[in-house]
């Protein structure tokens, strides 16, 4: 037995505990989320350190065995902890950036296409004052423009449309179905700090609502009946929202939760048009919503914010949108394809930067690994010379430096992959990405994420392998006696 029981068991306990902490990741508060993930990653790191580095026995005085190669490597890593930690951290950062850019690029594309598909609409009709060019996916939640001032996001609500717009649009040739939606209000559960967690309340039709129907396992009228509400994928439990889900005199009952889209739809609470009207009546009865931390409602009974339109099979949505814009006054109609395209174009620059930076980062990581391997090997040249003089072959020396380089690079790289994977599944990063970059993002499917992680692992292994080979090559070229003399300087 060459392993010490206490650090080995402690290492496994820390590893299992850390993974458990991460696996149980279901934070309701960002601070707790950071603490949970941070503690988990730290525990995993400590666990790996205890297992791989500390638990190995130092040979006893009367031990009949000679030191082993891994023993030399392990002690080198342990005694030069600062060098190991700094080179490992550099590798981890680079691998982290690489995987992040892969997930971000693909998550954004996935978000745009899946949202478009799930909305099930061909055309979106909005007030003519709404600017589509700014933030296409904001338009879907009816916020025509946004402005960040003093770190707090504020949104303007575009003018409302009269309710008969829905009928006018429905009467246009080729239209198969229409469904109206109404932006009731929005609020910031966290006080608007940094713009996090903005929540919209949107009124939706309970019948013929093909937009919500495509998302829900049950029908919309069942979910929105009474004071029922359908919440977007990122809306916290109502009990954690201000006023615990009681808005404008109505206590909302969460009946269903939509899957994440990576857009602001994830921050929407859908209510029925009847519920929206009840809220308006509560305000009209003389109640002041500002006393409850809510802004005053500005729509009138029967008004709407937008109409989603589905055309008959074979009809051209672009022609339909043009017809709607021409025949219904005060509106503009956009095809969902054009919105998605506008989004894709808008983000393509950003995504290209991420893709390019990913490639550059890998090239950079190779250069860094090569430099670290070269520096570490040169730093060890005295030891290498001594080992050669004692009878260590060039092959042994190559194996030793390659093992050391591969150990540091692969452990650091795998830790980075774990951290990124956790981060990209956390609401903290989710909100940060959407709000900081104004970018749609949803984690790719588990199988796709698995593929990206596997690719990252492969990249880490290739990078580690190259670093190890380089270190081995440098060490193999050293003249033993020269190495000892230079190593002493």
């Amino acid at each position: 037995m060459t392993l010490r029981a206490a650090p080995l068991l402690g290492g496994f306990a820390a590893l299992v505990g850390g993974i458990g902490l991460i696996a149980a990741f279901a934070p309701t508060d960002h601070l707790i989320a950071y603490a949970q993930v941070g503690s988990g990653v730290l525990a995993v790191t400590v666990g790996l350190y205890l297992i791989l580095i500390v638990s190995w026995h130092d040979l006893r005085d009367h031990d009949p065995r000679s030191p082993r190669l891994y023993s030399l490597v392990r002690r080198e890593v342990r005694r030069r902890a600062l060098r190991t930690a700094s080179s490992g951290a550099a590798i981890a950062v680079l691998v982290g950036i690489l995987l992040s850019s892969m997930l971000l690029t693909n998550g954004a594309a996935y978000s745009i296409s899946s949202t478009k598909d799930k909305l099930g609409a061909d055309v979106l009709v909005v007030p003519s004052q709404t600017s589509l060019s700014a933030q296409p996916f904001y338009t879907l939640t009816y916020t025509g423009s946004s402005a960040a001032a003093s770190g707090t996001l504020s949104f303007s609500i575009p003018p409302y449309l009269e309710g008969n717009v829905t009928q006018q649009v429905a009467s246009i040739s080729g239209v198969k179905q229409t469904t109206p939606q109404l932006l009731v209000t929005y609020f910031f559960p966290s006080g608007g700090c940094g713009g996090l967690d903005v929540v919209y309340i949107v009124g939706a039709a309970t019948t013929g609502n093909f937009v919500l129907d495509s998302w829900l396992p049950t029908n919309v009228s069942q979910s929105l009946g009474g004071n029922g509400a359908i919440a977007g994928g990122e809306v916290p439990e109502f009990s954690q929202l201000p006023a615990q889900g009681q808005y404008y005199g109505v206590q909302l009952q969460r009946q269903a939760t939509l899957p994440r889209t990576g857009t602001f739809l994830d921050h929407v609470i859908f209510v029925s048009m009847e519920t929206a009207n009840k809220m308006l009546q509560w305000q009209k009865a003389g109640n002041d919503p500002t006393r409850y931390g809510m802004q005053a409602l500005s729509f009138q009974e029967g008004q709407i914010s937008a109409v989603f339109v589905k055309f008959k099979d074979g009809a051209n949505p672009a022609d339909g949108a043009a017809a709607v814009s021409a025949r219904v006054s005060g509106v503009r109609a956009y095809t969902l394809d054009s919105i998605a395209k506008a989004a894709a174009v808008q983000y393509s620059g950003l995504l290209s930067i991420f893709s390019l930076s990913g490639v550059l980062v890998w090239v950079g990581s190779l250069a860094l690994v090569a430099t670290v391997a070269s520096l570490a090997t040169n730093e060890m040249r005295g030891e290498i010379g001594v080992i050669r003089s004692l009878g260590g072959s060039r092959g042994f020396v190559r194996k030793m430096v390659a093992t050391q380089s591969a150990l540091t690079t692969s452990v650091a790289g795998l830790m980075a992959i774990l951290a990124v994977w956790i981060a990209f599944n956390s609401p903290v990063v989710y909100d940060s990405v959407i709000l900081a970059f104004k970018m749609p993002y949803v984690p790719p499917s588990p199988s796709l994420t698995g593929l990206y992680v596997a690719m990252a692992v492969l990249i880490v292994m290739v990078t580690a392998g190259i670093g190890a080979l380089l270190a081995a090559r440098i060490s193999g070229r050293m003249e033993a006696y020269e190495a000892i003399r230079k190593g002493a300087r």
Partner: protein
Amino acid sequence: MIELRGLSKHYRLSGDVLVKAVDKVDLTVEEGEFAMIIGRSGSGKTTLLSLIGGLTKPTAGSVHVDGVDLWSMSDSEQSRFRAEKIGFVFQIPSLLPTLTVLDNVKLPTMFSRGVDKVGEKALALLEMVGLSEKAHAYPSQLSVGQQKRVALARALMNGPEIVLADEPTSDLDKATELEIMRLIEKVHEEGPRTLVMVTHNLELVNYATRVRTMDNGVLSKSAGQ
């Protein structure tokens, strides 16, 4: 027995300057001899020693140890041969800083077959050099003189027939120098072992059974003793 025939090591520096560190050296060291090569710094002594030990590849000539041509062997064969036949003591402290004193002494057994009771033997060698109580210390916790004594113990770990010592007493005070030389004398006598030592210190020539001087890479034929 060590036989050097026409052994040369030339370097080409920038500016196409040829440095003849060792030039056409012929030398025979008989089994059990204590040969000392003296010379000033830069005379090529250390290069000669590394050529004898197979640590530096000669430009020309041959090195035969016990009838075996060192440079006719593959790297792994030569390494194994070095591990089992030759022990080195270097001018500079050359212990691995990441290993304890005891593990440093045990280290050569990684590369040699058939060394029994590694731990006991390493402790016995530390006892011989008077450092058994430092077995679990790290090299950085030892003085230079103590490190050189550990290096001597390490050189003997695989029971080599030949010990090559490069300025083992440099940078030491007189008392420590004497201590080290007595140990080397003991190693030579108790082996019995073939010993080749290079030094610039003329006061040490009395320890050797044969002395040669080296100057500008050339080994003189005149014997100092």
